[in-house]
């Protein structure tokens, strides 16, 4: 930290250790925690630092990371999307039903993604058009979506899928990299680029930072909100398809269950404040990694898994504490 350069160094130089911690907390706190976790595991956990385990870790976290990336944009506008798990189930049930009924894999997948994206856009339209709180709108879809998914799959029965082309999504590799991990990496990189370089990315944080000001600056705040929820829906759809391909079956009652909570946790741990106005997609990916590695640490060391939940909760609280808004 001593070698820090630029503007941040002046902020850190002003106070002692605590204030420099506070200054770096939001930006590097999550990264520091991740490094600590990896170092700890590399030393104490057998078979942790192996290529197999690296890919396995990334594989495990892919659905959460995808959903959390969309969630990051939603939260940056000051909203929240609780419906992601149910949207995953809808996409899963729809794709599986269509493929089982003889539709081509490509068409089925695209259709499922379009519906997922539409679900998100509907969330956004209700939130911005009717000024209903995001938590309520997306809670409604969380409930209704799970039901709809089970209706699509004829009463929620398990639909087995033996289609090799579709299965590639869950089990295929590109070189040493699992196909789904590659998708996650591409999505994350695109999201980072969009948030850093595009005008849309700027609008997202502007709407979350000060909606009235953004509107007076000519930003189409409704369109911006609808778009972020649509993106969140789309990414949830992709996650739903991956999960389905991985299982080789669609289980509308289970796919994506409670994933919204893991995604929100990853976003918060990664340093995106729930109040909106800031977004760090990179942080969110780090947050998802932290959560995943904590789970693996407990499993690989044969400690009761329940304890990992307690540690995760502690990490979330610490993250929020470190990032709390400072009183001027």
């Amino acid at each position, binding site marked *: 930290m001593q070698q820090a350069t630029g503007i941040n160094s002046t902020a850190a130089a002003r106070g002692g250790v605590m204030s420099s911690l506070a200054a770096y907390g939001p930006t590097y706190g999550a990264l520091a925690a991740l490094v600590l976790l990896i170092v700890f595991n590399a030393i104490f956990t057998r078979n942790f630092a192996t290529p197999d385990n690296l890919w396995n870790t990334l594989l495990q976290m892919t659905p959460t990371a995808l959903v959390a990336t969309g969630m990051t944009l939603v939260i940056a506008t000051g909203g929240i999307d609780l419906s992601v798990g149910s949207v995953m189930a809808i996409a899963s049930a729809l794709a599986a039903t269509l493929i089982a009924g003889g539709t081509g894999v490509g068409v089925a997948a695209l259709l499922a993604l379009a519906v997922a994206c539409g679900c998100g856009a509907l969330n956004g339209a209700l939130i911005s058009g009717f000024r209903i709180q995001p938590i309520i709108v997306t809670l409604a879809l969380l409930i209704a979506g799970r039901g709809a998914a089970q209706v699509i799959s004829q009463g929620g029965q398990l639909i087995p899928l033996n289609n090799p082309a579709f299965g590639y999504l869950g089990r295929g590799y590109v070189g040493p990299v699992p196909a789904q991990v590659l998708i996650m990496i591409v999505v994350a990189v695109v999201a980072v680029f969009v948030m850093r370089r595009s005008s849309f990315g700027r609008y997202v944080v502007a709407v979350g930072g*000060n909606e009235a000001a953004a509107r007076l600056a*000519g930003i189409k705040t409704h369109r911006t909100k609808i778009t972020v929820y649509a993106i969140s829906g789309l990414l949830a759809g992709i996650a739903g398809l991956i999960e389905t391909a991985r299982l080789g079956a669609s289980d509308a009652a289970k796919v994506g269950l409670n994933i919204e909570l893991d995604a929100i946790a990853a976003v918060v741990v990664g340093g995106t404040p729930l109040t909106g106005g800031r977004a760090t997609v990179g942080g969110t990916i780090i947050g998802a990694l932290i959560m995943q590695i904590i789970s693996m640490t407990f499993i690989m060391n044969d400690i009761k898994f329940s304890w990992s939940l307690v540690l995760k909760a502690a990490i979330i609280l610490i993250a929020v504490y470190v990032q709390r808004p400072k009183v001027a």
Partner: protein
Amino acid sequence: MMTNVPLLRMEGITKIFGGYKALDGVALTLERGEVHALVGENGAGKSTLIKIMTGAYGRDGGQMWLDGQSVNFRTPEDAQGAGVVAVYQEVNLLAYRTVAENIYLGREPRRFGFVNWKKMNADAREILERLGLNIDPRATLGSLNIALRQMVAIARGVSFNAKVVVLDEPTSSLTEHEVSILYDVVRRLKAEGVGVVYISHRFDELYTVCDRVTVLRDGRFVATRSLAGLEKIDLVCMMLGKRREELRQGTTAFRHIERRGDEAPLLRAENLTRGRKLNDVTIEAARGEIVGMAGLLGSGRTETARAIFGADRIERGEVYLEGKRLNLRTPGDAIDAGLAFLSEDRKAEGIIPELSVRENLTLAALPALSKMGIVNNARQREIVEKFMKRLGIKATSADQKIRELSGGNQQKVLLARWLCKNPKFLILDEPTRGIDIGAKGEIQALVGELAEAGLGVLMISSELEELVEGSSRVLVMRDGECVAELRGNQISQDSIIHAMAEGSAVQADQHVADDVSKQF
């Protein structure tokens, strides 16, 4: 009980918020059966005083007596128990409960541990009748209109055996007819010996229902006067803190040149109408002209600006730019047409606090700065550098978060946000409020230059010097109407104040103005 002590007396009330004195030695005396107006412009300290009076805030200095007894309310419940209640403009009641439940919320009459509905409804009916209101206590509150809900809120206040009732802008959401219901209630309270503190921006109301007025300015006590016999112009002078000697020129950075506007208007806004806030406002501005707009708080200045900019829905009215009618549904439409609007409240409607100077500066210009949605960093840097230099924006770098800048520098960034779009018409709402003298002069000089270069400007300001010296014409707003247009040598602080108070452009009477100066 002694009858010669005032009902409520506050002396030397001081309140400090983080080193800043929001109130400094303020006094207020309220008699029984008196309706007492409390007035002042932004930041005068009215609401802080009310919150201290009703126990929502503690005080940092001063004393308060109720019926001659020294009191010190720690919570609003304390104050209510003593009979001092506030009724706020946004009614804090439960829409799905009945009128009677709302009135007695939290202290329902009970029998054997259960709510005694019969007694509660009867008591509520009695209170409502006392106030001359024909409302069914069993009706659901949500089924009543805004005005009646407000009356229920007052009834709730009265039900605490209120001795002092504070009404904070009670008419702001009421229609003309509903206002008369309120007046009636206020008169009944008065007749019962209740003291009413009445906060409103509307002079007509003050003169209709109030007996005396206390004026605050910048957290200080200015004067308490009887409204009967007090000229409106004196009241305005007290609110604005003007004296005769100050009504001279030479304190702003506007170069004093006579500006002629072009003949054909650049912008024309016609018959702008929105509820009671805007009533048939028509204004015109030419290229190269700075049109000043004066008016007290709540007079419809900002509403006019927002209507022209498409920021609020209006019921009626049209805006023409260069003779072309604009279809304004959102601010985005106005911006595309070539309008720009520097809003009054920098914090709430201007800056995006967490974003950098660069991001804030180019926010409105992004469509022009990006290709296929990707921002062109080189051009962005170029523009940011140019305008930071031109406006003398002081920041450690363009990456610094805007919230860390001083008010003056924030304002410059916001001005640059519009200037980099090269607009045709610029609306400035209080462009120099709350910024340091240096930045103020720079902004004024810049606006002057821009107008000379052909930009049309509408400048809303509470600073009369700024209006007198900067404008080629001054429009004066009052109660949602444009009541006067001053040109050439008609433009003076005197004439503006006169129009604000009386609603016409007649030159202020010399001896009236002299009287005002003696009172300070």
